[in-house]
């Protein structure tokens, strides 16, 4: 900024310019030939200047569209139908009824969305070379889809025209995103994965320092917000009982920024500075990392030395609690959804952060408490007890073998 500008008093429009502006705003400006009006129009026209990278609009439109639809599906699943208009809810019900859209498909849409997001998040230079290809691909799919007569048509409005909801709408979105992904990935996959994982690992290291600082001024304790849990610690957004409120202590008290606890792969991650009085993330989807479930009385950083390397304090968010909170079946050995289920970063009590391709670390599943792990082990070992000598319990007991 120029020195001149720093010391300038408040600028005001000359009377003639102000009058020209008033005419323009009131729709009376017509005389573009008049030099002053033209200048004003040119000046304001600068506000519409294109921004870099906006040309990959097809991918951005698709991602936005699918996110809106998916959120509607999720909201309906969560029982919160109040945000859907009646027509939308009816269309959704039909859709769900006809196609049996399952959560696994939502998860796949999530992944496809995140892949497509890469197409609009890359460096501008790369985007330029991709954009034509993406556009062409999407256009080809769109025209192929529109050429097909709407099979499985769900809605038939008397005025015809475009007022139809078709299975092909869904199929085309899914297909588009798949193809966008397959087009975009070969060029970007390595780079983007590397960048995301590096940024995430860096978050872990920042968090490690923050845990140390916190412990230093809080009698060696790990962050803890609630005196005790009076309900489910999975209730993110309920700081009186949620475990995430414990982790939120770090940004709340200024030990980290929210951005440091936001995995770059989480589009919903809360960023910036926490608002005054904020005690927790507001929902599970805003969370990027899972924090050790705090026992009553908290946990000291300095527990017996040989075990400190083992104890995992924080990790990429748990798929188990995520599924459990949605009432879904859990898969104990599933990797975190943060990095396309390839693995997860783990931060241990000794401050070391690393990448693990399985949640079972040194025999301990980080997503589960020991007693559930033992139950699982017991069930699995019993399944292994089939020796080939068992018989069906009765004539009606279904039991097949090789």
């Amino acid at each position, binding site marked *: 900024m120029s020195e001149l500008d720093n010391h300038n008093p*408040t600028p005001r429009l000359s009377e003639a310019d102000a009058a020209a502006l008033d005419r323009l705003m009131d729709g009376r400006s017509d005389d573009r030939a008049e030099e002053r009006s033209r200048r004003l129009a040119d000046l304001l026209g600068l506000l519409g200047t294109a921004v870099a*990278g906006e040309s990959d609009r097809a991918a951005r439109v698709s991602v936005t569209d699918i996110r809106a639809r998916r959120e509607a599906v999720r909201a309906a699943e969560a029982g919160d139908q109040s945000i859907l*208009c009646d027509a939308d809810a009816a269309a959704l019900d039909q859709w769900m009824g006809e196609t049996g859209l399952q959560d696994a498909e939502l998860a796949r849409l999530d992944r496809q969305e995140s892949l497509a997001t890469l197409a609009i998040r890359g460096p501008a230079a790369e985007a330029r070379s991709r954009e034509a290809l993406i556009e062409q691909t999407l256009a080809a799919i769109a025209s192929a889809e529109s050429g097909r007569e709407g099979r499985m048509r769900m809605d038939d409005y008397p005025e015809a025209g475009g007022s139809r909801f078709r299975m092909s709408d869904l199929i085309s979105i899914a297909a588009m995103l798949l193809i966008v992904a397959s087009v975009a990935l070969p060029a970007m996959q390595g780079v983007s994965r590397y960048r995301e994982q590096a940024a995430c690992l860096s978050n872990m290291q920042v968090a490690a320092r923050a845990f140390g600082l916190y412990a230093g001024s809080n009698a060696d304790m790990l962050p803890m917000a609630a005196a005790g849990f009076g309900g489910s610690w999975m209730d993110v957004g309920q700081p009186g009982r949620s475990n995430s409120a414990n982790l939120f202590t770090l940004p709340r008290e200024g030990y980290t920024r929210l951005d440091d606890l936001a995995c770059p792969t989480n589009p919903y991650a809360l960023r910036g500075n926490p608002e005054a009085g904020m005690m927790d993330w507001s929902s599970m989807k805003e969370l990027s990392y899972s924090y050790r479930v705090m026992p009553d009385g908290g946990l000291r950083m300095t527990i017996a030395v040989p075990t400190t390397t083992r104890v995992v304090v924080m990790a990429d968010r748990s798929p188990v609690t995520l599924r459990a909170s949605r009432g879904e079946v859990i898969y104990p050995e599933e990797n975190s959804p943060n990095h396309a289920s390839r693995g997860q970063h783990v931060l241990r009590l000794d401050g070391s952060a690393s990448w693990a391709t399985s949640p079972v670390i040194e025999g301990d599943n980080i997503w589960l408490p020991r007693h559930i792990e033992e139950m699982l082990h017991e069930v699995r070992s019993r399944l292994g007890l089939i020796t080939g000598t068992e018989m069906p319990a009765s004539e009606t007991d279904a039991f097949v073998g090789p």
Partner: protein
Amino acid sequence: MSDPVQPSDEAVFERFLDGDAAAYRTLIERYHDDLLRFLTRLVGDRTAAEDLFQETFLQIHQSAHTFDTSRRFRPWLFTIAANKGRDYLRKRGRQRTVELSAPIGGSDGSASFVDLLEVDVPSPDAAMDATEQDRMVQSALSRLQPALREVLLLAYFQRLSYQQIADDLGIPLGTVKSRMHAAVAAFARSWQAVTREKPERAD
């Protein structure tokens, strides 16, 4: 089959409300450029603008039933986007204070007059490098106080008249006018500063 007259935004939105899923995509496409530009200029951060773009359309989707279809869609969209942008800037908080406190003088009552005839503004057909212009516009806007920047951008992108803005915000017409005058003057001055810096940068 061709339809020479595009259906209005409001008509498209009604189709969406009636269950036409494709209509929503039409609106996203229709507003893609303007909304992305608006948000990028408002928050000054391209990645954040991408997120806010999506958040805005999510919000519209979720609040669809609250929209009064006798009103115009465009101002509603940009009002929601501006709210999202404002929230984002507020959350980002102190990180921007240096930049925000930098521009355009104090409020000591003294004023310098801007005469547009003295401001060098490229005409739309001027052969100016797009990337350079993008950078210069963003730089000029970043020097404005946030409130002025928002007024200016909303006025430009919402396409509302003074009276409509006054009605919409529930503030006196005179206030709307004076804010808009101040915003345009501030933008003209900072654009002037940016264009003057340009040759220095090249040297």
